[in-house]
């Protein structure tokens, strides 16, 4: 049949035909028996909507054609508008007559199930009817810019069902959620389906989901957790509370995975965090017996890790935690300091060895403390910057407190000396030593007076090198490398120079011996070894004009001649206080070899000429200070080995004493070392460092002003402090003094108009 010959389909006629299909569809959806449509088919419907095609196949084609015809007929028989309207009415009719009544009579979970079913049905109906009426979509709707068919279908459901029922639905869902929170099992799939409706109803936007469901759900969640938290905070310990909180968060996340829309996750978790953690943060942390402080005290690492995980979720949540951590570590450190102080001031402390031991123990404990809490930072606190900072600040506080009269710089230097010297009290493997040295250098980072440490270290190093007390060259070099890495080359350049000098000294010595063998006349008859030190590298030593015994004078002369042959432009200054002598003592029981210092040897050799000598005579002959004389005589007459007899035989040397060679002296060993305890260099070290600091501040001020030309007082001071920080913390008053001095010396001037500003004078 051609177009022209087409039989006109009348509206009602055509509609009657359509209605059959629609009714069939509705019946199927209602579950009413339909020929060729069994209950199994009904199940299939949901899974494979295309299944309907089989059922409605014949209708499908014919319906299409009918619609096509009715739409393309010439006016007044073009029924597009009517068909469009009746399409919509079909839904309205079905919804009002069947869907809504059935929903209204159900409640709670039953209602939800019904809704899900009805919605699913509706979607099927929309899909099919819009297929039937498809032709309208192609031309009529486009031409008139009307909503397309599927949208019309959805809108019907939204306006007639959703609008009326969504509040009830929402409340029912929330009730179920709360039940699940209380531990009951609920039908998660059902909830997912219900919530999908909220999403789909909004078509492209999430507005319906958010406004009609999510907002209320979040509100309810907040209220729920607020109630819980207010109970838990009173009843539970901090760790228990945290366990519950962590569990809740996990469950809520789970909820999202299973039925809430993904977009709710962040908002939901934030609400929960807020109610459980943010609101009660300080109460939780400060709980008396189980709060953060207690957890640190009791080493509850797992709880602390949990605390970190939880508090890192809330804004600035970690700040109070890191603060408590810092206070804790500081307190522990200060306790160690106090412990060491108490030990130092106790009665036992009169013995010098005990003091030394206490110092060792103290430094060891500080190292251990550091190890322990660094581990916390790395593990429990996941290497977080805040905690690294807290640890650093804590250590900076107590590491700069000295113990008794010794600064921490000195203590560390002594500690190193103890490890590096021979016969050390610490019996450690090479590996352990390396590790310990590594840790000590790390501690140095916390000490503000690094230059003081350097000076003490240098002094000790000098003694180790010169008295051959260094246990292991490799360790000596290794710690210098570590110090260089941490503090820069300038820090270690002098020390490296010292080590170098010793190496060179060996060369010199072999040349000297060669010289002696080539010049037998020059030979002083005593084995002589000389170590030439480069002045700049070594600590400064006062050289006293010791009156050398004749034998030694010749040695000195010979070396001087030899040295002249090597270099002409250098001046040799002899430091007798650092020398060592091996002397044979012809005692009655047996001859023994005594290893003593040059000072001691010079004193002993006096007794070759006289049997008895008074203190004053000895002092006059040696030409040393009272201090030195007293010390050396003490070491020879009042200490472990009594080479000389003292009259009167009191414990200490006094200026009225007389001394006599002790012929009866003996020991089971053939060779003994008679130590001369070194004079306390502490005061001198501090003086030297203060002096160096003045120069350093001077130089720094000049350098800064030279480059900046004009600066205010405050700018200059703060720049100075910043630049010197690596080595020491300059005293503001000291800086002021140097500025004043530089003004007097015409390096700087004060600006005439702005009296707080300085100007560089070229």
């Amino acid at each position, binding site marked *: 049949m051609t177009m022209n010959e087409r039989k006109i389909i009348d509206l009602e006629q055509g509609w009657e035909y359509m209605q059959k299909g629609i009714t069939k569809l509705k019946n199927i959806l209602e579950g009413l028996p339909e020929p060729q449509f069994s209950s199994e088919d009904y199940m299939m419907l949901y899974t494979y909507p295309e299944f309907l095609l089989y059922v409605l196949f014949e209708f499908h084609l014919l319906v299409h054609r009918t619609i096509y015809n009715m739409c393309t007929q010439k006016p007044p028989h073009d029924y597009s508008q009517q068909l469009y309207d009746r399409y919509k009415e079909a839904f309205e009719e079905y919804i009002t007559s069947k869907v809504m009544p059935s929903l209204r009579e159900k409640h709670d979970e039953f209602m939800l199930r019904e809704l899900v079913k009805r919605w699913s049905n509706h979607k099927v109906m929309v899909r099919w009817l819009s297929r039937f009426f498809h032709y309208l979509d192609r031309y009529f709707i486009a031409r008139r810019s009307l909503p397309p068919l599927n949208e019309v279908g959805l809108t019907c459901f939204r306006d007639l069902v959703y609008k009326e029922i969504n509040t009830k639905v929402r409340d029912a869902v929330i009730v179920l959620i709360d039940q699940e929170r209380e531990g009951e099992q609920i039908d998660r799939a059902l909830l997912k389906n219900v919530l999908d409706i909220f999403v789909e109803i909004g078509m492209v936007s999430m507005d319906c989901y958010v406004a009609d469901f999510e907002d209320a759900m979040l509100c309810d969640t907040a209220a729920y957790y607020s109630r819980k938290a207010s109970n838990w905070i009173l009843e539970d310990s901090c760790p228990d509370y945290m366990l519950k909180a962590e569990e809740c968060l996990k469950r809520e996340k789970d909820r999202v995975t299973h039925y809430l829309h993904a977009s709710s996750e962040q908002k939901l978790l934030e609400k929960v965090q807020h109610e459980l953690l943010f609101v009660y943060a300080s109460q939780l942390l400060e709980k008396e017996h189980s709060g953060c402080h207690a957890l640190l005290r009791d080493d509850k690492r797992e709880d602390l890790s949990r605390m970190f995980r939880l508090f890192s979720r809330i804004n600035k949540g970690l700040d109070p935690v890191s603060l408590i951590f810092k206070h804790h570590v500081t307190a522990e450190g200060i306790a160690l300091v106090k412990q060491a102080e108490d030990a130092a001031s106790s009665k036992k402390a009169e013995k010098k060895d005990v003091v030394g031991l206490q110092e060792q123990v103290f430094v060891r404990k500080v190292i251990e403390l550091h190890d322990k809490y660094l581990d916390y930072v790395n593990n429990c606190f996941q290497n977080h910057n805040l905690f690294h900072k807290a640890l650093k600040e804590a250590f900076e506080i107590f590491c700069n407190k000295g113990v008794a009269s010794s600064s921490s710089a000195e203590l560390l230097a002594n500690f190193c000396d103890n490890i590096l010297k021979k016969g050390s009290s610490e019996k450690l493997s090479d590996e352990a030593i390396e590790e310990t040295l590594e840790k000590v250098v790390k501690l140095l980072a916390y000490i503000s007076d690094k230059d003081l440490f350097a000076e003490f270290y240098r002094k000790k190093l000098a003694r180790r090198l010169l008295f051959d007390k260094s246990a292991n060259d490799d360790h000596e070099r290794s710690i210098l490398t570590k110090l260089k890495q941490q503090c820069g080359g300038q820090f270690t350049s002098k020390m490296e120079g010292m080590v170098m000098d010793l190496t060179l000294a060996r060369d010199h010595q072999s040349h000297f011996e060669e010289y002696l063998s080539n010049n037998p006349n020059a030979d002083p008859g005593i084995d002589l070894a000389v170590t030439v030190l480069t002045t700049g590298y070594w600590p400064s030593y006062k050289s006293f004009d010791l009156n050398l015994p004749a034998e030694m004078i010749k040695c000195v002369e010979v070396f001087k001649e030899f040295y002249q042959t090597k270099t002409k432009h250098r001046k040799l200054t002899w430091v007798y206080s650092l020398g060592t002598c091996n002397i044979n003592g012809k005692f009655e029981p047996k001859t023994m070899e005594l290893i003593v210092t040059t000072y001691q040897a010079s004193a002993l050799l006096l007794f070759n000429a006289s049997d008895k000598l008074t203190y004053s005579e000895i002092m006059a002959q040696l030409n040393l200070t009272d201090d030195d004389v007293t010390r050396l005589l003490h070491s020879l007459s009042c200490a472990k080995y009594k080479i000389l007899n003292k009259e009167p035989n009191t414990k200490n040397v006094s200026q009225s004493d007389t001394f006599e060679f002790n012929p009866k002296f003996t020991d089971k060993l053939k060779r003994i070392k008679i130590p001369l305890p070194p004079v306390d260099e502490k005061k001198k070290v501090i003086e030297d460092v203060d002096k160096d600091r003045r120069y350093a501040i001077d130089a720094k001020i000049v350098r800064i002003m030279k480059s900046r030309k004009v600066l*205010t*007082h*405050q700018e200059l*001071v703060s720049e100075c402090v910043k630049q010197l920080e690596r080595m020491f913390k300059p005293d503001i*008053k000291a800086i*002021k*003094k140097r500025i*004043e001095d530089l*003004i*007097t010396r015409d390096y700087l001037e*004060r600006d005439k108009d702005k*009296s*707080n*500003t*300085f100007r560089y004078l070229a």
Partner: protein
Amino acid sequence: MRRSSTRKTGTPTSASSLNSAADLFRSGIALQISIGWDNNYEADMDKLSKVFTSFCSPEGIENLCSDIQVDHTDVRILMLAWKMQAAKQGYFTLDEWRQGLRSLRADTVAKLKKALPELEKEVSKPGNFKDFYAYAFRYCLTEEKQKHIDIESICILLELVLGSQYRPQVDSIIEYLRYQKEYKVINMDQWMSIQRFCDEINFPSLENYNPDYGWPLLLDNYVEWMRGNPC
């Protein structure tokens, strides 16, 4: 009449024995007299030179002082010195002396005496006062490379130069200077700062004193002392 060019004054004041404005004056002027005289012995012995001559001896200064009826410990003597010296500190020629007196419009001792109040006003103008104040310090430096003046002399100088204008501060500062032991001498920068301090800082509250501003340490210590010793 030619005077010996090696004529010297009494012992040039060592920093610690300075005890009056006349000494200050004397030490400066007397030295110059001998030199000035030498350079200009052929000069016209005009009126001004007569005045000059009349006190070219240590006693002469006393005479001058009594002639113009000014005590030799009076600050106006120092002001006179300042007026005279504009060119070079502690050293002026007969010419400058002449010019100085000329600018004061004083060719007789009587007129000199009358010109004193004018001079005082001139000195107290803010621009001039600072200059005068600095001059006072430099005038006490006797050795060539000297940069410091001892505490006791400073106290006298302070009293002389600032006493009338800043009585309470000066009294208090002098008391502190004598009490503290850290500084034995004062340099120019500290000296100038004292005047600034009196000028800018509220006394006795001291509440607008800001140690971060860059005041010399001496004044920081002074303020600390004041605050620890409420009077």
